[in-house]
């Protein structure tokens, strides 16, 4: 893992404690190629790598989801092509090209 490229303040938020023997899949986040495991949600794939998913629209403060069950809508992220995904309920797919860290434009 290319940890040295990640700034200190975006250290991974989630910690894997079980089920680590799954197949690896790769995706990109802001152009960087990263690894996840088959069956991860987009939220898991991103937050086992970095410390947030998105920024709040008004304050720009970092956000990392909240309810993890599709209720709070605080984990929407974008793909490079502009598609919006609810990270907690969307499975990661090999080759997904995600964008994080920028306030979303509506």
């Amino acid at each position, binding site marked *: 893992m290319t940890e040295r490229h990640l700034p200190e*303040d*975006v*250290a991974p*938020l*989630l*910690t*894997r*404690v*079980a*089920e*680590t*023997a*799954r*197949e690896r899949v790769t995706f990109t986040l802001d152009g960087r190629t990263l690894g996840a*495991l*088959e*069956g*991860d*949600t987009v939220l*898991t794939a991103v937050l*086992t790598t970095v*410390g*947030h998913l998105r920024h*709040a*629209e*008004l*304050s720009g*403060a*970092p*956000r*990392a*989801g*909240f*309810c*993890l*069950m*599709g*209720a*709070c*809508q*605080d984990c*929407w992220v974008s793909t490079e092509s502009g*598609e*919006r995904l*609810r990270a*907690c*309920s969307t*499975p990661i797919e090999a080759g997904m090209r995600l964008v994080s860290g920028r306030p979303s434009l509506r």
Partner: protein
Amino acid sequence: MSDPLNPVIVGAGPAGIRAAEALARHGVRPVVLDEAASCGGQIYRQPPPAFRRSGASLYGTDARRAAAVHSAMAWALDRVDYRPGTLVWNAEAGALDVFQGDRTSTVPYSHLVVATGATDRVLPLPGWTIPGVFALGGAQVALKYQGCAIGTRTVFLGTGPLLYMAAYQYAKAGAGVAAVLDTAPFGSKLAATPALLRQPRILAKGIYYLAWLRAHGVALHEGVRPVRILGSRRVAGVIWSDGQRERELACDAVGLGYALRSETQLADILGCRFTFDPGQRAFRPEHDAAGRSSVAGVYLAGDGAGILGADAAEWAGERAALALLEDAAVPVDRARAATLERRLARSAVFAAGLERAFPLPADWAAGAPDDLVVCRCEEITAGDLRAAVRDAGAHELNRLKALTRVGMGECQGRVCGLAAAEILAHAAGLAPEAVGRFRSQAPVKPLPFTVLGTQPRKPA
């Protein structure tokens, strides 16, 4: 339509599954719509296919219940029209608007069982939007559904039996637990014991978690008052008061929750009459002992109809299905229906006991600072809400929404509704039932922009 009996069940948790099973046993084939990719609801949520943990590891003491519910659905699969990954985003008399895959369609119904379940009941505190703070149920989903912990030193903060259950599950999985901080004092639990004895199995489970956590040296504090979560780009600690002085605890994650709240948007859009439930300090859709709502042909079951827990959800789902059949002049086993109603009545006593044992902090609104972000979506603060009460005379929740945008964001007030109502009631000097509730609006959850208005509505 040739067959006038065309029931639809919304939700495939314990209530929806038992409703589907009961209808199928009577030769009726319902449509079962569920937002999740696989059945079980939140409590019996199943991990994606690549995961390998056993039921005992995933569901602990509830493993047998979980297996029974999953196998009921497995049995019903050939006998119902099960449509996972389907969001019901709007409803009208006789038809539901659904979104599945990348398209919307309309699903007609003659009878509707609404089994939409529950989500975490949350009261905000300063710092609750910092990455690393998750809803308590979310912390459980991370572990159960993804094999992840939200941190390596997690504080479980709030109140309710799930607080101890989640802490136990984390500790058992080898994820560090810094402490359980429960706002409910010990005395309230003691006072509730007689009511809690109505469901000894569940009470025993709670006592077991508590004893296990104590035996394993996890710090448990009762009667706490949460002050703030520390950190900027991620959680660094929690400050709480024990009534005498403020105490600081280092941690890197917080699971935050005050038991559960019913998911009622669909019942609201359907026009069901609501009533204020003082025990749950919230409005919930009215229903009779069998689950009939105020709208003919619409039945309510499970935690979406009032928080009674997973076991009761199974009974309520089956009972609602029997009511539906009775109303459609299909003969049913009335003794079974009566048994289910008796169990549900016992569950209601137990649930009232839980609310007494783990009450919402009565003084939360009074202590919420003006700069506290109440609404995560629109970043509306307690001070913004109080200003609207003071300067514009807002005294009703939808008026407050119009003035401040609280509850207008993408969660539609699911997360902030309770907090906004409590702040409003306190600031206006009103009882919580006097300030009303957020009106639900379609779409109940966000849809891709490309979907709305571009596709003709056709029956599925």
